[in-house]
């Protein structure tokens, strides 16, 4: 059975050649160089850009920029920010990552990972030209693989939680072949959460407000009823159907006809249109296309698992590499072209560095210096919002700045790391207060009516922004800046205060260190080796094990088991002693873990000790997000694994814990008597715990 040329994929492909930006081909936009215009729509434009970092550390990014003339429309700005916030929270390989978002001169933008690949829409357009390929078993399995991966990405979004652990109930609402992207490396990415629904959206959609593409909307969505994750399952079902058959499922002459078709037209099985489709894929697809949401797959993950199972039953395994091979074979020329485009962008940014006068915005060109300085910002202009926070970008220095010793998010304009969890990002957003810029002529006047990121209304609804915009306690960097601003007569007094403060901090630190070492001797076990291997490890850990008294759960109120565990108690102090400014809120996190099982997280946070001023002042030694894994095995049986009263699962189990020395408790066969094992969790690495148990 061949595909009918009625699919219409290539008709509305809408692909266009990337157009160079401006007359010079490059435009500076905050800390980015916009090089090519990739796509433009009613709301904004997408550019291929370079994130300019220090010492030539550049990377290609896609910049999605809202049209400047729409920047004063609060509704659109909120939608735009919502997209950024939701996407930046989803940290999943099957969702396009957000690196950064914020505002430059009143223009909001999102910096996304630039993907080399094709949309599913483009894949279908390509297959329309080669109808025989749609019948090939390989395509069927690739379609299943792509949708299965998209299911995982969407499931990650659907199950997002806010900082307090409350579900955000994100629904993408615009899943379509245009928003499913397959990279040339074979990975599938879900794009564009622009109309996604979430509990904490700035812009709340009311029931009846229909957003998305009608042909991929679930019946309840086109009816304007409340939707949940199952609406995305429906859309995935439509995508899968269309990928398997090679035709549009709901392609009607008018929107009204499309809505009617979505609501009531009989949906044929894919195999009825294309006989090569397997019964298993038929069944999966039709279940996703159940009009009653209760009849659909209960979650995207359930659908993905069914697809995985169907894939496993195929004679040919289809993994990432197979999709990559298929993509490279099909899109060899386009891949080459896109790679060349990236190389061109690289070259253009290099030439820009070499010839700053060639920029489209010469007034913002960096001063001639051996190391490219951070992009200057006019007064109150550029603000960078990273992973839910707004961080004032580096002000242009009065003289060429020295390269920073260590790239930190606040001290260098380097490419921001992948968005960390919101709470952690808020921690790292401590930044120097805005400095007066000594080059007012370089600052273009702000457009009247343009949106201000520090808008109180917006800041109120955007807590991290409010935090970051609030007065920042003086840090080592900011105090230096303040000294410049103070009148000369007060400098000696300040110096004296600084010396006294330093002495005080030093003595407190010494005391803390003495206390830490004194108590750590009490709990330091013999086996805290980063990687305990084989029998020696087992023996070592066994030696370190300590049987504790009976009790259903570790009681945080017990003197022998204080919050955080008696043996772990000194660790936060040790981390404080390590003088980590970013870890200032680490005790809060730890305290949340110490909460008794079942206790609300809010209560745990409320009880969390506030970080000391000393801890806040200290420079970072290692990131607060440093975590590691522990593989726990209990040969001879299974055991419940607890850490600070939290049940982490049963052995065998790989658990993720904050780096450092930790105490885990093993309760064989669910007994109330536990065995405490001390383990050193290496940052970003895996360690092992082997503790034989007996019935």
């Amino acid at each position: 059975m061949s595909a009918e040329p009625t699919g219409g994929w290539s008709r509305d492909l809408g692909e266009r050649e990337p157009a160079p930006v401006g007359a010079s081909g490059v435009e500076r936009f905050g800390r980015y160089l916009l090089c090519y215009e990739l796509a433009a729509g009613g709301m904004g434009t997408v550019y291929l850009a370079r994130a300019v970092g220090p010492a030539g550390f550049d990377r290609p990014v896609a910049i999605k920029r809202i049209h400047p003339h729409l920047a004063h429309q609060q509704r659109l700005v909120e939608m735009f920010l919502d997209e950024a916030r939701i996407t930046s929270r989803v940290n999943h390989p099957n969702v396009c990552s957000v690196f950064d978002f914020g505002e430059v001169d009143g223009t909001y933008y999102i910096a996304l990972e630039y993907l080399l690949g094709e949309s599913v829409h483009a894949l279908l357009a390509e297959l329309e030209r080669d109808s025989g390929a749609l019948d090939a078993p390989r395509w069927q399995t690739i379609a299943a693989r792509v949708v299965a991966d998209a299911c995982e990405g969407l499931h990650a979004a659907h199950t997002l939680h806010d900082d307090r652990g409350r579900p955000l109930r994100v629904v993408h609402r615009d899943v379509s072949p245009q928003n499913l992207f397959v990279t040339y490396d074979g990975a599938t990415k879900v794009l564009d959460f622009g109309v996604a629904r979430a509990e904490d959206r700035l812009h709340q959609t009311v029931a009846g407000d229909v957003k998305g593409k009608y042909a991929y909307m679930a019946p309840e969505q086109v009816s304007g009823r409340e939707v949940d994750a199952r609406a995305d399952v429906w859309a995935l079902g439509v995508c899968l159907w269309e990928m398997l058959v090679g035709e549009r499922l709901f392609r009607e002459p008018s929107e009204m006809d499309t809505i009617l078709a979505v609501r009531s037209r009989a949906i044929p099985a894919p195999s009825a249109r294309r006989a090569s489709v397997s019964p298993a894929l038929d069944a999966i697809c039709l279940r996703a296309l159940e009009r009653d949401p209760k009849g659909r797959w209960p979650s995207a993950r359930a659908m993905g698992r069914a697809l995985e199972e169907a894939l496993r039953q195929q004679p040919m395994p289809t993994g990432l590499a197979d999709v990559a091979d298929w993509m490279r074979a099909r899109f060899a020329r386009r891949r080459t072209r896109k790679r060349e485009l990236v190389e061109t962008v690289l070259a253009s940014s290099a030439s820009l560095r070499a010839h700053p006068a060639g920029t489209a915005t010469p007034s913002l060109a960096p001063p001639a210096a051996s190391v490219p300085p951070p992009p200057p910002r006019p007064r109150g202009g550029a603000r960078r919002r990273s992973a839910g926070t707004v961080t004032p970008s580096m002000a242009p220095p009065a003289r060429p700045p020295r390269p920073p010793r260590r790239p930190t998010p606040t001290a260098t304009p380097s490419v921001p790391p992948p968005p960390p969890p919101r709470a952690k990002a808020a921690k790292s957003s401590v930044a120097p207060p805005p400095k007066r810029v000594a080059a007012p002529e370089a600052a273009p006047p702000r457009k009247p009516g343009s949106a201000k990121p520090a808008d109180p209304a917006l800041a109120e609804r955007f807590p991290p922004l409010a935090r970051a915009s609030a007065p920042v306690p003086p840090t080592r960097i900011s105090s230096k800046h303040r000294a410049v601003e103070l009148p000369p007569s007060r400098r000696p007094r300040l110096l004296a205060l600084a010396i006294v403060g330093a002495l005080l901090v030093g003595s407190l630190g010494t005391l803390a260190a003495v206390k830490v070492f004194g108590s750590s001797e009490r709990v330091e076990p013999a086996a805290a080796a980063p990687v305990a291997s084989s029998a020696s490890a087992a023996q070592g850990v066994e030696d370190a094990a300590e049987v504790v008294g009976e009790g259903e759960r570790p009681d945080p109120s017990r003197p022998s088991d204080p919050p955080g565990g008696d043996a772990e108690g000194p660790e936060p102090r040790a981390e404080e002693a390590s003088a980590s400014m970013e870890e200032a809120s680490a005790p809060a996190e730890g305290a949340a873990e110490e909460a008794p099982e079942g206790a609300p997280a809010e209560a745990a946070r409320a009880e969390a000790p506030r970080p000391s001023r000393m801890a806040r002042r200290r420079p970072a030694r290692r990131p607060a997000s440093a975590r590691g894994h522990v593989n726990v095995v209990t040969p001879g049986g299974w055991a419940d694994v607890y850490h600070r009263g939290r049940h982490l699962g049963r052995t065998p189990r790989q658990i993720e814990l904050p780096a450092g020395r930790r105490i885990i408790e093993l309760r064989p066969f669910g007994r109330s008597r536990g065995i405490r094992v001390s383990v050193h969790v290496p940052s970003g690495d895996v360690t092992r715990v082997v503790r034989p148990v007996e019935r």
Partner: protein
Amino acid sequence: MLALAFSAGATSARAQAPDDVEAGWARYREADFAGALEAFDAAEAGEGLSPASLARLLEGRALVRFAQGEQAAMEAALRRLANLDPQHALGDDAPPEVARAFLAARRDVGGPVRVEVEVWPEPAGARVRARVTGDATGLALGVRLRARVDGEEAWREGGEELLLPRVDGPVRFIEVVATVLGPGGAPLARQGTEERPARFDLAAGAGAGPIVGAGPSDPLAVGMLPARRRRVIGGALGAAAAVLLVALAIGLSRGETRTQPTAPVVVELRP
């Protein structure tokens, strides 16, 4: 020379696969999950696995996947295990979640892989076909057929279908050995053995369609000891005996006086 080298290579591969299973378990016991998976994968890609070692491999893989939080992969391994040996007894390392998933897998899969043999009389010989049934998880990777006509010395070998020509007269009977092969070359199901092949008498059924082997084959005995089941039964019997003993002791220790009602107590209520 080349054949010798090939044979030596094949022999080493045969010997290696079960070793890889044990290596995988050893890695698992060292909590090296990634290493265990590598070893299991190597064993599956090798040769010479017995059904018991394949079951052990699948159980180990399920445990590792459980440890890694890969629920789907764990369930897949358990489904394959249930398809190989529904009566398999999981070891003590398996937590209740894995045991429950195995029970569910056993229900879903429905039974073990089996093989049926059909023999079709042909004008100048016979055609033998092996059909795999119950392969709900794609465990079967191939079929090895061996057959001979009228008690000939030489066996003919093939895949799912084998043509047995006979030019010097009609075929009287055919002896067949059919084996379903799974990962690591493990035999999953068998019809007949070299010593006692399945015998099909063609004299009566010539020209009347296929002669189907006498029922589907029995699954191979995987040979795992149902240690847990024995322990459970033993424990139950022991508990019952203990209850009986306690009841008996109570009955004997109670004297007659204890069962008599006590005298009434008069309570005077004074205003």
